[in-house]
């Protein structure tokens, strides 16, 4: 309602911008001079007022429409331009102003202080504030009109000194655009449209860069026609030069009472206006009476004097500030500092100055920004996310993909959305819709909605998502903490805060900022009814849950009060911010189908209202609101309801239901007189007033709402039970929370700061202070179970105990119960499953078919055992419950109370656990057994028990340093050897004997150290070494003997000094001693490996025979096993000579073991006998 944009105020800061801009063209005065021709349209006085406001609101309304657009204005897209064109229908401007003239009344051309085009270099509509101009009528006091700017005032006599074009404003109430002026304005409108386009273009052109954000609010009086040169000079406001003091004092008093009695729609808007007056910059020329013709027309000459010079303005402002000291003193410290240092206040009211200084010094209300969290994922929780939560495997797996796609989209957005030319719908739209199609196919919407909502809370509950727009200088601590790495990030971050979001005026339209944009755009792009419905369900549920939380303790004992209060405050803040966020999205979704670009016509409105009055609201906010007022929890409920309602479409407020809600809110607003009292703490009230005030300014909330006289007073029921501490009465809101919820309050400070700075270029923008605050999660909500008599007794028990006792008991019961189930799963069920495994293993071998039947049989057998679960569960709860309660309750708790608490906790826990177990144990056993069984079927071969046996061997030798080579390395080296042996190999490529020996030594080490060994590597090693042995036996390994002959040559076995014996012996030892897994020595007899021997011209059967004996001696293979292997080898189609050799070999081997003679020298024997064989071939 601030008149910033109104022409009626000579000192309106808006002019400052217009002037700036005008510098590019001619002088401001040149635009102004023709204006006086504007006719004094007296008849339209009242309506004229509202037309100004209507236009202002219209701007905001357009913003509302462009909610879906990029808030940063990156994409000024079609819908926006449509909006603009529509807007031009609103006759903003003096009827007579010629096309080439600028019109100071035009909010667009001369946006108010803080509006986008003035602050930033681009004329972005989305940054425009929603100014409510000072109305034309000011019966006695101009300021009074200023706040209402609506038909409240009855006196048509009110005149503006500078009322030039004001009269031209047509009387248009919103929704009733039939202009009084009528179509006669059509031409002008067209011309103005063009003119505006030109201006907008200019504003965004490089020349516009000179517009600095710190431009002070300088009320270059409309009548001080041409002052381009001096306009930068700040007039020194002088108390001595104030005229009409008495009237001003009177006005100030009236005005202040209106503020104090909440008769204004938004008290902070009024404060903003007062500060504008305070910081207005006049020029010396104003002191002279530079009357324009307009004044002559004014009926009341005396009135025009009141605000005609800067001295009067400042005087009035200081007076009001003095009255409003209490509110002001509750502002954050930075604002107080600026006020305390304001020289005008000091010179106009030393007393106020002193009070402010003291307030500043004692203030602890430093407000800081929270660091924005970067994207973090929602963690996977088996309880809600695992397979058992899905109807089918397919649904589960599709959701697995959906989750990954969702985060992929999120990351893409995070990386790119700030890049120019990046368009959400174009880049992500199709991906999102494809994802939605998949969701629909498997009915996974509820899962996805839950993920979506959790992610939303995680990313956006901080104030950044809400676009905090101001702050302090950066803390060194923050910089230190972030480290130099992150400085550039911090800087970017800062820029983000400083540049686009900072200037939205004291009443910005609702918007989605920061990460919220992603979620909004996601919903829009998805365009999925099913998804929206599930999301609405999910949001409603969460809102109800959070809204119903018990947030405060019953009463504090002295010692811990402070700590508890701090915790409560924190908790409250988290809950409140989450609620607001959720409600905002709920509002967005609920009203989304009805969103229109334009204000509907009256006919449309009526029919729509008829149509929609029938439908039930998704969430009964009216009931919740009434409840919250009754329970004195409004401080929690109203803020989120306001967020919800801020997204109403144009029609919803006219529906019976929402009208009631708005009326009730209005009633609350009116009744909430600011003062410290028992009912509600000051800052709590301030928060409610600030957000309600903001809501009343939201474009789609009809303006007449506030001023409807027939607000049927609902009798506000208040719970007067004194035993419980009401939420409202607890000082839960601090400045941090206030400014987090209402970032636009920061505009007050900006205004003051820019005044001090004089010019924005100098003050270098507003640097933000960033203090990281750890995010905290919501405490688990205790579940209250309804029971009968026992329950009543229990309630009675708790009634006279501190609530923390109850919370503790419930918490313990919940946890112990849940742990009990887990415990049973891990112990009893696991045991049963193990037993089932054994049973199944035996039976599977017997009969291969009828797995299902088998499974059923085994399970049935186990179900009886499952009944034990209840007994064990009860035991568990009985043991753990009291332990936990005792630890958690204060030491001093009396024995009786303690015992009762313990009993209740045990009882509740048992009930929970056993209830679940008795219902689910059978299914659980079956599921687990089935899973195990499936695993068993999939893994043939190694039966599980044998693996267990292996585990026993899995110990390093004592004192092992784990320095052995890695298995993978050894495998690769052995493979190298095999590779060379098999060929093809290069000329002269050989393997060094010593090296190979050494390799086998290292192999032994590696196998002994179990640290890095795993079954697969070990099996691989076993196989490799068998291959190696086969190649060695058939003399395929091109060994090079080193200079030193192998020491083992002394052994008598090595008749030919063949070093291979040594290697084979080593291998046998390793197989026997070091392997934990069975070595597939049978592979030695595979056709392939035996064929190596066949390839050799001079066959070395000695080695083979040596190996056979070695296998027997080392217990690696039995004699009969070898025999059968040899026999089966003979079956194969070999060359005839080789077959003979084989037969011979087998005969020799068998004869050796079947002769009863002492096997002193079997190998020698073998050598001899084979010698003949070799000779024959």
């Amino acid at each position, binding site marked *: 309602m601030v008149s910033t944009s109104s022409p009626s105020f000579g000192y309106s800061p808006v002019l400052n911008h217009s002037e700036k801009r005008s510098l590019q063209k001619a002088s401001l005065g040149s635009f102004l001079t023709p204006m006086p021709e504007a006719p004094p349209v007296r008849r339209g006085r009242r309506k004229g007022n509202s037309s100004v406001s209507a236009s202002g609101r219209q701007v905001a309304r357009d913003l509302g429409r462009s909610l879906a657009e990029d808030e940063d204005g990156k994409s000024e897209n079609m819908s926006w331009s449509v909006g603009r064109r529509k807007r031009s229908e609103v006759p903003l401007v003096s009827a007579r102003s010629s096309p080439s003239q600028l019109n100071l009344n035009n909010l667009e051309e001369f946006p108010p202080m803080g509006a986008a085009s003035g602050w930033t270099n681009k004329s972005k509509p989305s940054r425009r504030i929603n100014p409510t101009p000072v109305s034309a009528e000011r019966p006695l006091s101009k300021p009074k009109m200023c706040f209402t700017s609506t038909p409240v005032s009855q006196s048509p006599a009110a005149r503006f000194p500078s009322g030039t074009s004001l009269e031209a404003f047509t009387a248009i109430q919103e929704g009733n655009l039939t202009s009084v002026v009528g179509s006669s304005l059509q031409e002008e409108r067209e011309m103005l449209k063009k003119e505006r386009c030109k201006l907008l273009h200019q504003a965004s052109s490089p020349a516009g860069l000179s517009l600095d954000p710190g431009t002070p609010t300088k009320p270059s009086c409309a009548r001080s026609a041409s002052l381009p040169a001096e306009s930068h000079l700040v007039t020194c406001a002088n108390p001595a030069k104030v005229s009409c003091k008495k009237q001003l004092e009177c006005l100030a008093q009236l005005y202040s009472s209106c503020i104090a009695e909440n008769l204004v729609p938004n008290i902070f808007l009024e404060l903003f206006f007062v500060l504008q007056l305070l910081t207005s910059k006049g020029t010396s020329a104003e002191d002279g009476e530079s009357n324009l013709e307009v004044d002559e027309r004014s009926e009341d000459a005396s009135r025009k004097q009141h605000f005609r010079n800067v001295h009067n303005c400042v005087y009035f402002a200081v007076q009001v500030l003095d009255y409003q000291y209490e509110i002001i003193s509750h502002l954050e410290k930075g604002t107080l500092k600026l006020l305390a240092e304001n020289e005008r206040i000091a010179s106009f009211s030393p007393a106020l100055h002193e009070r402010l200084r003291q307030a500043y010094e004692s203030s602890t209300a430093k407000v800081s920004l929270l660091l924005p969290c*970067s994207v973090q994922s929602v963690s*996977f929780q*088996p309880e809600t996310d695992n397979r*058992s939560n899905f109807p089918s495997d397919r649904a589960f797996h599709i959701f697995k993909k959906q989750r990954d796609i969702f*985060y992929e989209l999120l990351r893409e957005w995070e990386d790119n959305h700030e890049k120019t030319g990046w368009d959400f719908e174009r880049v992500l739209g199709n991906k999102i819709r494809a994802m939605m199609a998949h969701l629909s196919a498997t009915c996974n919407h509820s899962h996805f909605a839950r993920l979506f909502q959790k992610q939303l809370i995680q990313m956006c509950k901080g104030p950044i998502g809400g676009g905090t727009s101001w702050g302090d200088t950066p803390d060194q601590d923050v910089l230190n903490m972030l480290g130099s790495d992150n400085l550039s990030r911090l800087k970017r971050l800062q820029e983000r805060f400083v540049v686009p979001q900072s200037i939205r005026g004291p009443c910005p339209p609702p918007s989605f900022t920061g990460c919220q944009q992603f979620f909004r755009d996601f919903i829009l792009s998805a365009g999925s009814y099913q998804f929206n419905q599930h999301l609405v369900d999910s949001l409603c549920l969460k809102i109800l849950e959070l809204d119903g939380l018990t947030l405060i303790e019953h009463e504090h004992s002295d010692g811990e009060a402070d700590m508890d209060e701090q915790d409560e405050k924190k908790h409250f803040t988290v809950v409140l911010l989450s609620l607001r966020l959720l409600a905002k999205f709920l509002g967005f979704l609920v009203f989304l189908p009805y969103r229109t670009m334009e204000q509907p016509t009256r006919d449309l409105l009526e029919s729509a209202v008829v149509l929609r009055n029938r439908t039930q609201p998704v969430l009964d906010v009216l009931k919740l609101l009434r409840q919250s007022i009754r329970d004195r929890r409004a401080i929690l409920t109203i803020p989120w309801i306001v967020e919800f309602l801020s997204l109403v479409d144009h029609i919803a407020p006219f529906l019976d239901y929402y009208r009631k809600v708005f009326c009730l809110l209005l009633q609350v607003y009116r009744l909430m007189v600011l003062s410290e009292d028992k009912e509600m703490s000051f800052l709590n009230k301030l928060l409610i007033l600030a957000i309600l005030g903001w809501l009343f300014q939201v474009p789609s909330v009809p303006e007449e709402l506030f001023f409807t006289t027939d607000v049927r007073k609902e009798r506000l029921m208040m719970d007067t039970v004194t035993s419980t501490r009401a939420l409202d009465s607890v000082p839960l809101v601090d400045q941090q929370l206030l400014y987090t919820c209402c970032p636009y309050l920061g505009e007050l400070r900006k205004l003051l700061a820019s005044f001090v700075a004089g010019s924005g270029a100098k003050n270098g923008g507003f640097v933000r202070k960033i203090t990281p605050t750890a995010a905290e999660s919501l405490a688990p909500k205790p579940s209250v179970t309804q029971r009968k008599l026992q329950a009543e007794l229990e309630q009675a028990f708790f009634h006279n105990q501190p609530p923390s006792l109850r919370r503790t008991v419930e918490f313990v019961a919940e946890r112990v119960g849940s742990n009990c189930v887990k415990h049973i799963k891990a112990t009893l069920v696991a045991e049963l499953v193990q037993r089932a495994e054994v049973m199944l293993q035996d039976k599977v071998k017997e009969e291969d078919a009828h797995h299902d039947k088998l499974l059923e049989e085994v399970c049935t057998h186990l179900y009886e055992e499952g009944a034990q679960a209840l007994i064990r569960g009860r035991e568990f709860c009985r043991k753990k419950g009291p332990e936990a309660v005792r630890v958690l309750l204060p030491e001093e708790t009396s024995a009786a109370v303690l015992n009762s608490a313990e009993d209740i906790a045990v009882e509740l826990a048992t009930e929970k656990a056993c209830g679940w177990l008795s219902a689910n144990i059978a299914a659980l056993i079956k599921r687990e057994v089935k899973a195990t069984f499936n695993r068993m079927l999939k893994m043939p071969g190694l039966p599980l028990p044998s693996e267990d046996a292996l585990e026993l061997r899995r110990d390093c030798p004592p004192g092992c340093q784990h320095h052995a080579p890695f298995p993978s390395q050894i495998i*690769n080296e052995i493979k190298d050897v095999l590779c060379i042996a098999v060929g093809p190999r290069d000329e002269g490529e050989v393997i060094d004997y010593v090296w190979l020996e050494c390799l086998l030594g290292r192999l032994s080490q590696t196998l002994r150290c179990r640290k890095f060994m795993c079954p697969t*590597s070990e099996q691989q090693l076993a196989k490799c070494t068998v291959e190696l042995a086969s190649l060695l036996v058939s003399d395929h390994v091109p060994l090079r003997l080193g200079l030193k002959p192998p020491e083992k040559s002394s052994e008598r076995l090595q008749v030919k000094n063949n070093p291979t014996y040594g290697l084979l012996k080593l291998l046998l030892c390793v197989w026997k001693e070091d392997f934990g897994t069975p070595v597939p020595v049978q592979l030695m007899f595979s056709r392939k490996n035996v064929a190596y021997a066949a390839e050799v011209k001079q066959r070395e059967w000695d080695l083979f025979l040596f190996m056979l004996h070695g296998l027997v001696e080392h217990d690696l293979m039995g004699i009969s096993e070898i025999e059968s292997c040899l026999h089966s080898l003979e079956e194969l189609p070999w060359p005839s000579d080789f077959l003979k050799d084989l037969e011979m070999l087998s005969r020799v081997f068998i004869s050796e073991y079947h002769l009863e003679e002492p096997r002193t020298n079997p190998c020698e024997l073998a050598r001899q006998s084979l010698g003949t064989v070799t000779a024959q071939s």
Partner: protein
Amino acid sequence: MKLSKAQYDEIAQFLGQVQPTRQSLRKLKEKFPSQSQSTLLSIFSQEYQKQVKRTHAKYHTAEAVETYYQRYLNGVMKNAAAPVLLELANEVDFAPSLMARIVLERFLQEQGQAIPSKTLINSMLRDPSQIPDGVLANQVYQVLITVVFFFCGNAVICLNSFINNSSCSLRIAEDQLRAKGYDKTPDFILEVPVAVEGHIIHWIESKASFGDESSHQAYLQDQFWSYWNRFGPGLVIYWYGFIEELDCHRERGILLKDCFPTDIVTLRHSRA
């Protein structure tokens, strides 16, 4: 061992021109003596796999298969001991192991008249002694043993011991996580997160391979981001190194290392 993109490209370029044999590996080692053997080996096998994937299709036409088989038969007829399959593969510039598979498939088809099952073929390729023809078995074995076959070891086990030695509070290994119903599971989840080089780590994934661009992209897509989506930031260990330029998601929460980190900061005992 971390390689720069340029270094890696040089190696990959070299590998593009050679058959994946032991001899090539030796040349590779000679050409890039500063790189660790295991890294080179890993890159080698991965490049080889890529090559195989690229060229796979054109060698699988019925005509091609028939030609190869005939050439193989002719070859072994002349000299069964010669590396027929290897040479054939080299001549037509095809991966030897796939050549072995094609010939084996064709061989079995001829024998049994029916199309042999994949499992049977795989098992024969794993253990060529099952191949019912001695000559072919040898040929196949020769191929398999000659072709650079990179054995990965078991990275999880290695990691396990590292984790046990360090102060990480281990949660549960993959199979146990699966049992709990997690849909995607890294090798390890840390019950109490730790910080590595200033980055919070919730999970560790161990890769016994070299982190080149294509494999890393695939892993990111299939695994790492999925873990991130469920458990938050984590650590990937490429035991055989990676291209250092790929380590660009640290800020967001995927940290790459080529060894087990040494400067682990835990919640309680901050060493910093």
